[in-house]
């Protein structure tokens, strides 16, 4: 069997249902095989779109997303998407064509050292130099991508390897002597953690993306309810704890809720689960949660004690460990007074905004979207203000309903990710919350939607600015709006020209109607919401400040 065929047969064995990609000179044998192979292929209009779509598919389904591109520019166009998946620990396999092995290193046409370029942004990568290694390499790539702390894996396949012939042998098991992720936590550490929890008076659970990855959301709920501890999640953890639960404080950090931030700062115990104390979460490090002991549960040992000192580290799978922990907690902490204190903060510093006549407030759109969908939808976002409002004003009830670029903060992610999510979950309504800036970064994927009848709803919060940068300029650069006012095409006409539907909404009173209409249309819809131009995201912790030193805006 030729290498190109082995690749596809292997992908099938690995459970791949859909590939996102773009053809080119150095993947012609693969595309020739794809022509009549029984696997869905989605032709995006840019390789970056393919990478983000594979990422979005993965986030929505928990499966490994797959993207495919040619050598050189095809591969370098994947780079942002791979880096994005790496930062958020998303399992992905990226396959790139490479020039023939005899040409590698010769500056051949469309050659780039792709394994070199992607080395620091992949969990692992491979250059296949012998067709006999191909099937095993693919099996290893899927295993590495999806196990331990997941991440993207790239396989670079030279043209002659795609054409070379060998027997196809699919390895049923992968065994890597140098890679053995730890799943079960150390029993002694779990016991210690249980004792610490019993003696806490002001415990808080701080949960991150690890809850989603491990599928430990039910265990998390059971733990929080058992010990009656409030729960805050990171950006990546949204959906890992029910957004309407009375113990839920929303997201913490730079644009987190004031009550979540106050609670973390006043806590005497932080139970961190699958989170990494990112700088957007901790703010000023030396002043972060000064009274708190820290239990840190994470599958990645390098995440522990990286930013904050940890009293009880437990390396392993969050779902397993929380389950164990629950059974080990004998005496329950008394948190009645603590929860009362938190309710005080919640009342005193709620998330809020002010209406301004018939102007559309972005928060209002999200509130209405929540009312209409009741959380039964997948919300993807671009990056910036619209993204932060989507964190704050929509409630995520279950894992994998929130899909957004966290660590890398990639503008242009949301739209292709929405395509991936919709393909992974065709029964769900999928929205992309976008700004007028971000949507223009991968707007070409409208053609992908229309051509494949992928029905996603893009809600553009059009304020005529690169809003988040403008907000920083307003607050910290004396309102010198340097290159943040941005012009856009007529999004309604643009959508129409692609064969999608465009709607424009300029008044608050039209918002609900427009949302309902968009949801009824069986096509991709761009809704151009003309929102209040200089609305800000509040609260906000200025960079480098302690997280209880928030600017709360105009509430």
């Amino acid at each position, binding site marked *: 069997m030729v290498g190109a065929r082995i690749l596809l047969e292997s992908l099938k064995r690995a459970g791949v249902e859909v590939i996102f990609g773009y053809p080119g000179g150095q993947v012609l044998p693969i595309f020739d095989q794809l022509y009549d192979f029984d696997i869905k292929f989605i032709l995006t209009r840019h390789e970056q779109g393919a990478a983000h779509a594979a990422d979005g598919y993965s986030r929505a389904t928990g499966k490994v997303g797959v993207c495919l591109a040619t050598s050189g520019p095809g591969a370098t166009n994947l780079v942002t998407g791979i880096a994005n998946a790496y930062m958020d620990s998303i399992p992905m396999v990226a396959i790139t064509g490479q020039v023939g092995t005899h040409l590698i290193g010769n500056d051949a046409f469309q050659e780039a050292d792709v*394994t*070199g370029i992607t*080395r*620091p942004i992949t*969990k*692992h990568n491979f*250059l296949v130099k012998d067709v006999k290694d191909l099937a095993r390499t693919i099996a290893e790539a899927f295993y*590495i991508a999806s196990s331990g702390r997941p991440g993207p894996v790239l396989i670079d396949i030279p043209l002659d390897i795609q054409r070379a012939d060998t027997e196809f042998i699919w390895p049923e098991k992968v065994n*890597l*002597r*140098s*890679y053995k992720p730890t799943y079960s936590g150390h029993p002694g550490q779990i016991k210690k953690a249980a004792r610490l929890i019993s003696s806490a008076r002001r415990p808080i659970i701080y949960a991150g993306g690890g809850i989603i990855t491990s599928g430990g959301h039910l265990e998390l709920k059971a733990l929080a309810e058992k010990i009656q501890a409030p729960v805050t999640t990171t950006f990546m953890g949204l959906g890992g704890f029910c957004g309407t639960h009375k113990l839920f404080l929303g997201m913490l950090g730079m644009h987190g809720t004031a009550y979540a931030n106050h609670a973390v700062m006043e806590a005497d115990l932080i139970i961190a689960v699958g989170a990494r104390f990112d700088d957007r979460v901790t703010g000023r490090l030396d002043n972060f949660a000064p009274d708190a002991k820290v239990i840190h549960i994470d599958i*990645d*040992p*390098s995440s522990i*004690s*990286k930013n904050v000192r940890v009293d009880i580290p437990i390396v392993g799978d969050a779902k397993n460990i929380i389950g164990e922990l629950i059974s080990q907690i004998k005496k329950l902490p008394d948190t009645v007074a603590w929860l009362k204190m938190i309710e005080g903060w919640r009342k005193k510093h709620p998330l809020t905004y002010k209406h301004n006549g018939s102007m559309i407030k972005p928060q209002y759109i999200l509130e209405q979207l929540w009312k209409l969908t009741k959380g039964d939808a997948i919300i993807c976002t671009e990056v910036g203000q619209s993204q932060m409002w989507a964190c704050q004003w929509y409630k995520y009830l279950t894992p994998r309903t929130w899909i957004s670029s966290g660590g890398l903060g990639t503008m242009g992610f949301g739209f292709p990710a929405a395509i991936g999510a919709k393909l992974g979950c065709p029964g769900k309504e999928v929205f992309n919350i976008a700004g007028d800036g971000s949507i223009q970064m991968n707007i070409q994927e409208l053609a992908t939607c229309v051509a494949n009848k992928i029905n996603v709803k893009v809600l553009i919060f059009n304020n005529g600015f690169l809003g988040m940068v403008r907000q920083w300029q307003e607050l910290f650069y004396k309102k010198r709006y340097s290159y943040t006012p941005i012009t856009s095409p007529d999004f309604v006409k643009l959508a129409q020209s692609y064969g999608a539907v465009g709607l424009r909404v300029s008044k608050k009173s039209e918002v609900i109607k427009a949302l309902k209409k968009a949801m009824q249309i069986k096509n991709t819809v761009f809704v151009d919401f003309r929102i209040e131009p200089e609305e800000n995201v509040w609260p906000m912790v200025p960079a480098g400040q302690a997280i209880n030193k928030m600017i709360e805006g105009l509430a």
Partner: protein
Amino acid sequence: MRHTISLLVENKFGVLARIAGLFSARGYNIASLAVSETLDPTISYMTIVVEAQDEKILEQINKQLNKLIDVITVTDFTKKEHVDRELILLKIGYAVKDKQKLDELFKKYVGKIIQVKNDTAIVEAVGDQSQIGQLLEALSEFGIKELVRTGRLAITN
């Protein structure tokens, strides 16, 4: 502070680049690096010496090294008893009258003259960091024309 780290790694292309990348990405210079096959030809042994001001960053590098798929084990010798050695080769100025002085020196240090050509001798020596340092100082009076070093090798005891 100088740290000596040893690694057992898969003997494959690209592994060295992955490891070096973890240091360079943080702006850390590798002071010395020795790599060779072990008794098992599929495994290589690396000894890396690195200057690190920030212990926390070094701890992070160690953890990241452990995370690399091709890395089998990581040992930081900084807090471990170990034996280390380095081999050096030098070209020094030489005259017949120097022979006795050099022989004396090589009674104290492990080394020898390998070859003499005209007014130059090629000398080899083995020792730990301080021995090599002292020897280099002693040899400087002959005029060191060229020096190559293997970098440090280390093994636990």
